[in-house]
Every structure is written in structure tokens, then in C-alpha cells.
């Protein structure tokens, strides 16, 4: 699946997007965050405070316990500040 990162999540990880292949036991957004956090310092810094992280699965807002198994695209970003 594809992972997208926006705003300071993107800056801390140092990537706008990448292909990821989490193991089979990673089935929710929250578990994916934990798995990504272990990939390196930038990831750990980006996901250090889960309360400030929002996620979207296939371009729809997703809660931490939302399933990711069938997802093609998962995005992580800070709370929105548009408008």
C-alpha cells in the first residue's frame, strides 16, 4: 500500500510518500502508526504524540481503530488548518 505524509509529518519523516508493506498482524491505523514509528528517528518524531496525528484511509478520514487491510492509500497528517 501507499503511505502519504503531509505538513510537519512529511517534514519529520523526510518523505511525501512511499510504498509500505506492513506485516499481516498490522490491521488498524493505530497499529500501522506503531509499526511506522519503529522505522527510524524521523518516523518516531513524526508520530511521537498520537493525539496530534490524523489519518485518512483511501482519502476518507479514519479513526485510530479503523481497518487498513483493504487500503490502497493511507495518509498521515496534523490537525487541519485550512479555511
Amino acid at each position, binding site marked *: 500500500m501507499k503511505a502519504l505524509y*503531509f*505538513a510537519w509529518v512529511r517534514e519529520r519523516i523526510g518523505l511525501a510518500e512511499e510504498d509500505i508493506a506492513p506485516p499481516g498482524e498490522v490491521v488498524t491505523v493505530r497499529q500501522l502508526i506503531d509499526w511506522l514509528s519503529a522505522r527510524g528517528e524521523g518516523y518516531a518524531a513524526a508520530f511521537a504524540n498520537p493525539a496530534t496525528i490524523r489519518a485518512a484511509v483511501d482519502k476518507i478520514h479514519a479513526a485510530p481503530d479503523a481497518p487498513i487491510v483493504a487500503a490502497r492509500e493511507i*495518509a498521515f497528517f496534523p*490537525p*487541519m*488548518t485550512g*479555511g
Partner: protein
Amino acid sequence: MTQRTAPSVRVQAENFDPGREQALLTHGRRNIGALVSFVGLCRDEDGSLESLELEHYPGMAEAEIARVADQALERWPLQGLTVIHRFGRIRPGEQIVLVLTAARRRADAFAAAEFLMDYLKTRAPFWKKERRADGAPDDWVEARFEDDDAMARWR
């Protein structure tokens, strides 16, 4: 409602013309009694801001605004609905967002416009970064708690 109103949703780098959008929405219509327009502008009172850089999630931004627009159309009998949100570099005094609502009665047009703005602020995937006039490091704008409160009142 005899016919479903189709919202016009645009996410673009270019500026927009509120007067032109209003004219487009009302042209040739006789069933609109109230037209509410909201324009959000880039504000900088103390001269410290050089510009905003608005990042967005292409594809999701359009889809999320369309979902919010559909919710507004379900809640209020609207005759027309336009939302334009810009991305990219925006300087103080420039326009960022436009919401237009047309209805028979003004209470519906006002409520729908406020609802759309409250939802856009907290659900549309846009992020503002401030570029400082004095060359200080760029900084991401933090989400405001008041915006969450404003959205909560529509539940």
C-alpha cells in the same frame, strides 16, 4: 425540493472572483431569495507575515469538501452552493476560501454557510505554514480549539 442542487467544488492555486461566482450562481434564477457569501482572507495585522504556504492533499481535499457540501444540502433546502479553496502561496490581504450558499430564506443560507466553514476548517485536508517577514524559520499554524468547538455545535 423538486430537483437536487449540484454543488460546485473547486480546489485551485488561482485566485477567485467572489462577484463573478455570485453572478454565476444567481444568473437567470428567480427562485433565490437569499445569497450568502463567505470569503476567508490571509490576515497580518503587525506586518510580521511574508506569506502563507497552503499545503493540501490532492484528491482528498476535493472529495472531503464535496462530502461536506452534500451534508449541507441534506440539512438545508439550498438552491445553489459553491466552495472554492486555494492552495499554494498566499500573501496578506489575499483570498483563501469562498463559500456561497443560495436559498429561498436567509436563515437557511446563513446556517449552511456557517456550517460549511466550520466543517472545512476542521475536516478539509489543508495545512498552513507561515513564512515570516524577518526571515525567522517557517512555522506550521496550529489548529485552534475554537474551530473544534464551532464544529461540535452542528452535531
